[in-house]
């Protein structure tokens, strides 16, 4: 799908996918987040291993960064390439993740280009703690997030099962994600 072209808009694949996503293309967004996740994984794994932290929490750092990217995507300027913006958020979140594990001094992470070039596929056995964080949500919200993520249900199917309107499910999902972001952040402090 061709995203609306803005004059002077960057032409790299990520920026184009994000423009399409903002225009409402869910498939493009899913593909973009998958791509970003693979580069984030390489980056987080590198940073964790240099800091001498085991890679048990790499997937957590990846997901927390993805959530931040999702909730803050309006701060991306469509006239600028997406990758540096993603990298800035990723570095911020990975440094946070390392601090949480008691690493005060974090070495500067190297250039994101490297991770763009060396993406890392997801290990199907690597699970994040996000499920534990879901426990902090209101039951209805937790149910909705679980249904859409773990059970792979659509919004429509979830709405039908819970006898809610689709709009209400979307609103609850959005609130749940926002509150998940806040919980993740609080676990830093």
């Amino acid at each position, binding site marked *: 799908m061709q995203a609306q072209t803005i004059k002077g808009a960057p032409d790299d694949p990520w920026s184009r996918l994000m423009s399409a*996503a*903002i*225009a*409402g293309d*869910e498939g493009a*967004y*899913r593909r973009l*987040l*998958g791509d970003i*996740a693979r580069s984030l*994984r390489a980056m987080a794994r590198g940073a964790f291993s240099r800091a001498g932290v085991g890679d048990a929490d790499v*997937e957590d750092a*990846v*997901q927390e960064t*993805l*959530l*931040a990217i*999702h*909730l*803050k995507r*309006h*701060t991306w*300027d469509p006239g*600028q390439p997406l990758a*540096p*913006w993603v*990298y*800035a*958020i990723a570095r*911020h979140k990975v440094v946070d993740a390392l601090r949480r594990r008691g690493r005060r001094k974090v070495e500067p992470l190297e250039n994101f280009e490297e991770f763009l070039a060396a993406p890392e596929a*997801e290990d*199907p056995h*690597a*699970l*994040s703690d*996000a*499920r534990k964080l*879901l426990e902090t949500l209101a039951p209805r919200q937790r149910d909705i*997030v679980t249904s*859409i*993520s*773990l059970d*792979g249900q*659509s*919004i429509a199917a979830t709405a039908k099962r819970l006898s809610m309107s689709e709009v209400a499910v*979307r609103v609850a*999902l*959005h609130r749940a*994600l926002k509150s998940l*972001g806040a919980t993740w*952040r609080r676990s830093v402090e």
Partner: protein
Amino acid sequence: MRTSEFIAALAADPVPEPIRLGRRVVAALAIGFLGSLAIYALLMGPRPGIAEAAKTVRFWLKFVDAFAFALPSLLLTLRLARPDARIRTLTLWLIAPFALLAAGVAVELLVVPQSEWLTRLVGHNSMFCMRMIPLLAAPLLAALIVALRAGAPLHPGLTGALAGAASAGIAALLYASHCPDDSPLFVATWYPLATLICIGVGALAGRRFLAW
């Protein structure tokens, strides 16, 4: 939870109404400024003999300087609200108000006899100035912080501090029309101190409310 599962939840989340940070900040400034204006009207108002004072360079220097400080502070705040902010050149503009003020002080020291220096520096009511600038800045700072919560600053404390600086600069624009002290010696002493209070409060508010 697997990342692919997590992505499914993110992708299902609807596209939000586009948030335009710049517009939010402008709206916040307008609302905050109304608040400041109300405080100004209630507690201060323009000084007597303002028409007479407006004929002097000293009087206008206060406004030019406050503006030269407020504008780059505000633009920096807005830039810092984005994670991929580049701020270097803009930071240099913050030197301008200080250079201007220093020049004003130098001229004042040349044209005013030494015996007058201290009187002019102490002014009429410096403590009022120290209280009123932060008070006038408060609604602006509060509104700015609320607007900036939509941002994603990598340095929440610094961003809040600059929001405090911008608020203090705008507050100084208002206060300058009330304050009877026009000497650069007074302005260079008390205005920055009052601004520092705003910067400190802004930094704390930023750390508390702008982390994400």
